C-alpha cells in the first residue's frame, strides 16, 4: 500500500484545499475518514470517484470505538502557499487525534472534499488522497502526525 492521489482529484487537490480555506462555498470542508481497506488494492481504490463508491468497493469505514470523521474547515487550514524555493505545492493540515480508541484496526486515512457539509451524502464527497495509517487500538489516544499530506511538483 502507498499514499495515493485519487484519479478524480489529480490536478485538483490544491484548488479544493484552497476553496475550503477561502470558504468558497461557505460550508465546504475537508473530511478525514479512517478506514480499513481490506483486500482492495490501491489500483482499484484510486479509480473511485466518490467516497460512497470507495465504501462500496470493499473499504470499511471506522466509526466506533473512538474513531470518527474529522472535519477541517477554513479555520483549520493554512493559506495556500506555493513553495517557490523548491518549485512545488505542499499542503498541510494539523495533526489528527482520536481520543481513547478502543477498537477497530485501521489501515488508511482518506481525505475528501465536501462542498457542503450541511447537506448531501457520501456520493457528494470527492476523495482526494489516501494515506497509510496502520493502527491497532489499545484504548489510548491515536495521533496522526502530518507534515504535508499532499505535494504537487
Amino acid at each position, binding site marked *: 500500500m*502507498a*499514499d*495515493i*492521489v485519487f484519479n478524480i482529484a*489529480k*490536478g485538483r*487537490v490544491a484548488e479544493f484545499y484552497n476553496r475550503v480555506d477561502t470558504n468558497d462555498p461557505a460550508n465546504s470542508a475537508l473530511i478525514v475518514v479512517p478506514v480499513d481497506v481490506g483486500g482492495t488494492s490501491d489500483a482499484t481504490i484510486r479509480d473511485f470517484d466518490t467516497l460512497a463508491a470507495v465504501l462500496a468497493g470493499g473499504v470499511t469505514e471506522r466509526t466506533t470505538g473512538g474513531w470518527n470523521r474529522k472535519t477541517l474547515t477554513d479555520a483549520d487550514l493554512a493559506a495556500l502557499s506555493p513553495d517557490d524555493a523548491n518549485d512545488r505545492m*505542499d499542503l*498541510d493540515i*494539523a*495533526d*489528527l487525534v482520536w481520543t481513547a*480508541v478502543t477498537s477497530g484496526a485501521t489501515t488508511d*486515512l482518506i481525505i475528501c472534499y465536501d462542498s457542503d457539509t450541511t447537506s448531501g451524502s457520501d456520493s457528494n464527497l470527492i476523495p482526494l*488522497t*489516501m*494515506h*497509510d*495509517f*496502520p*493502527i491497532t*487500538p*489499545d484504548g*489510548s*489516544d*491515536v*495521533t*496522526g*502526525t*502530518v*507534515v*504535508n*499530506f*499532499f*505535494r*504537487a*511538483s
Partner: protein
Amino acid sequence: MSSPTLIASYPVYSAGADTTDLVSPSFTPANGEVIVVKLATWDTGNPMGAVSGGSQTYTTRVTAAPGGFNGWARIVTAVISGSPGSMAVTGAGTATNSRHSMVVERWSGQLDATPAVNGTNSGSGAPSANITTEAAGSAVSWVSVDVASQDPASKAYRLSATEDGLFDGHVGANSVHYFAHAGSGTGVGAAGTYAMGMTAPGSQTWVLAGIEIQGASGITQAIGTATETDTAAAITRTKTRAIGTAQSTETALPLGRAKRRSIGTAVEVDTALPIIGPAQTERTLTALGEPRTRWTAGPPRTRWTAREARQSDA
C-alpha cells in the same frame, strides 16, 4: 506507554572564549517532537542567553548556577508544533567572553507538564545528581560542567548513558562540558530515583542539569505525503501561415540585334532540259504570232527525221 527515542542530536561549541551565538544545523522536525536544549558555560556568573528557532516556544526547565568557582548549565525544552519545516536552534551567546557549548536533542516522546529534573546540581568529585522519574520507561538527559578541567580520557557515565557532546578544554584548564542521555528506546526503568552523572573522572568541580523525557502516551502514526507530478505537455505548433504574394519586376530589355544570321543555302537544281530544236522553236513562235526569228546561228542543227518532225508537230 512506549519509551522515548532520541531522533538526533546536534552539538555546537564556541571556538574559544568568546560571546558568539551557537546555532545548530538545520533540521525538519515533526509536530510533537520534544526538543531538549542543553547549554553550558565555564562561568556560573556568565550564562548563555535565550534559546530560539523555528518560531517555537522554549521553556527553561532547570539551571545549575551555584555561584562561586563553578560552571553554568541549563536545560531548555520545546515541543514542536505548527509544522515549522526546516529550522535551527540558536543559543544566544554569553555577555562576556566565555567557553560555552550547546547540544540540541530531538526526542520522540513527551514531556510532563512539569518534567522531573535533578535536585542537587553541583558538587565535587565524580558528578552524581539524582532525578526521580515520574513514569515508567522514561529517558533522562543531562549536561555537566567540570571547571576543575579534569582530563576526560577516563570518562564513564552513570546509567550506561550515551555521550552526545563533549567540550574538552582540559588542556589549559578551560573547563570540560559533558552531554549525555540514558534510556533512549528502552527507558531507564520504572518510575523512581536514578543518579545521573559520571563515575570518572573524579576530582571534578561540577554542576549538572538533567531532565526526564517520558514515552508518548497513545499511538502515534506519521501520515505520509501523497504526491502528484504534473507535467505540462508540449503544445504542437501549427505551421499554417499566410502565403504572401510573390512579386517579380519584369523589364523588357532592348533586344540586341543578332549579328549572326543563318545564311540560307542557295540550292541550285540543275536539270538537263531536253534540247529544243530550232525547228520546233520556230514553229512555236510562229503559232504565237511572234515575229519569225531567223536563226542565224545556233547550235548545230539537229537533223530531224520525217517521223520526228511529225511527232513534234503533233
